[in-house]
């Protein structure tokens, strides 16, 4: 059965307790600050220890962006799901906009609309911002200086992504050129000469 776990050292215990008690994911820096400016390398080692230690248990220590948190093991979802409040239901439009922001970030509203071929209601972006999944991330340096959007740490945490590199299929989409604008893709397909011509007068 379950023998007592191997004795954890003091710092590992402290990191474990802090991550358990925290209401939000903590970065190495936040852990270090909370634990009296402990050495970041040692904190990192403790976190890695814990990650290994909890592997295969009912609870797992996972990385979300730069931060870490404990959560239940995904394969136990069926046991825990009942009686839980439903997670936010997203409209089709909101889901698509979220995906476009995540795969293309940073991206302007006009760029989102050009991919979807339809105007995006202001409310759609608001819903995603209210959920804490996207944020305004500055302005694009083009005429009109449009606001550009990017995803947040909370987005990564909610969808169980360690980083944007973990977005499903992002590598294939990128290598297939499906994340490039249509103009670029067209130029690439029609060869350099033709694209020169296309850029000419007329």
């Amino acid at each position: 059965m379950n023998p007592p776990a191997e004795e954890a050292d003091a710092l590992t215990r402290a990191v474990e307790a802090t991550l358990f008690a925290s209401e939000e994911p903590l970065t190495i820096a936040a852990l270090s600050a909370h634990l009296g400016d402990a050495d970041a390398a040692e904190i990192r080692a403790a976190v890695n220890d814990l990650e290994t230690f909890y592997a295969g248990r009912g609870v797992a220590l996972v990385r979300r962006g730069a931060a870490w948190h404990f959560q239940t093991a995904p394969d136990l979802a069926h046991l825990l799901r009942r009686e839980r409040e439903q997670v936010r239901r997203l409209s089709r439009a909101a889901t698509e906009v979220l995906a476009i922001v995540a795969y293309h970030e940073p991206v302007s509203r006009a760029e989102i609309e050009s991919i979807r071929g339809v105007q995006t209601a202001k409310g759609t972006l608001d819903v995603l911002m209210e959920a804490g999944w996207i944020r305004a991330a500055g302005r694009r340096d083009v005429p009109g200086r449009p606001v550009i959007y990017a995803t947040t740490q909370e987005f990564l945490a909610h969808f169980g992504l360690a980083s944007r590199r973990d977005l499903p299929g992002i590598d294939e989409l990128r290598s297939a050129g499906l994340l490039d604008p249509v103009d670029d893709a067209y130029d690439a397909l029609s060869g350099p000469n033709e694209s020169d011509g296309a850029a000419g007068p007329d």
Partner: protein
Amino acid sequence: MSGTGLLFAVTEPAGARATDHGAGPTTADDAALYLELDGWEGPLDLLLDLARRQKVDLRAISILSLVDQYLDYIEQAEALKLELAADYLVMAAWLAYLKSALLLPAEEQEEPGPEELALRLQLRLARLGAMREAAARLLARDRTGRDVFLRGAPEGLRTDRKVKWQCDWFALIQAYGQVKARTAPAVHMVRDRPVMTLESALERVAAMLGVSRDWMRLEDLLPPVAEPGWERPRLRRSALASSFVAALELARTGRAELRQNGAFQPMLLRRTAS
């Protein structure tokens, strides 16, 4: 809105139609194609869905038959008197143009050519399709609050900031000294400053005017700097002020004339003629 039953079937646009202009494969299962108006996120979305029904790789779709499917859909909707948003109609017009251009002989084409437009449409559909799939895969992930759960009752971390106030003995004593100095019943001891009184200035100026009838600068009537004590700036200022008042007094009583050639010019005075 989705519950309002705006469902209708698009009848198969008779395979003959497609063969009429010899374009791409006809789609076999369109007879059972049920479309819900509210379900589309714009014309591109509708096109993408129609393209999907061709059941081929998006790169291999027949644009011509896609155009036909779209135009049929719009026709059906109009026949049923369904209100179509303007952008669906704009797309229909554009696709009709594209279709005619694709069927025209190549030499009569304008730039950009229909092949380019078709390819660009295909690229757009591929991009939208990719995002639609990505969205579905994203939503299927283990989501927090649905598949994985955070600690139900975390104790929470709290950092209480406590201010440690700093003040030293000298600052305390000094502050009290300043309060006392500031608010002590103000006995104003005007320091005894060396000044030239009006009386002595009057005496001196009158005496010096007596010497000649030439115009003299007021400054020249002051005690010379070389005289001990008179080099002090404050005293000189007092002497100047008193001498000026003395000059005015002498002028008022008719004993002296004053003249100044312009603003900020030297003040000149001399004894009156009498």
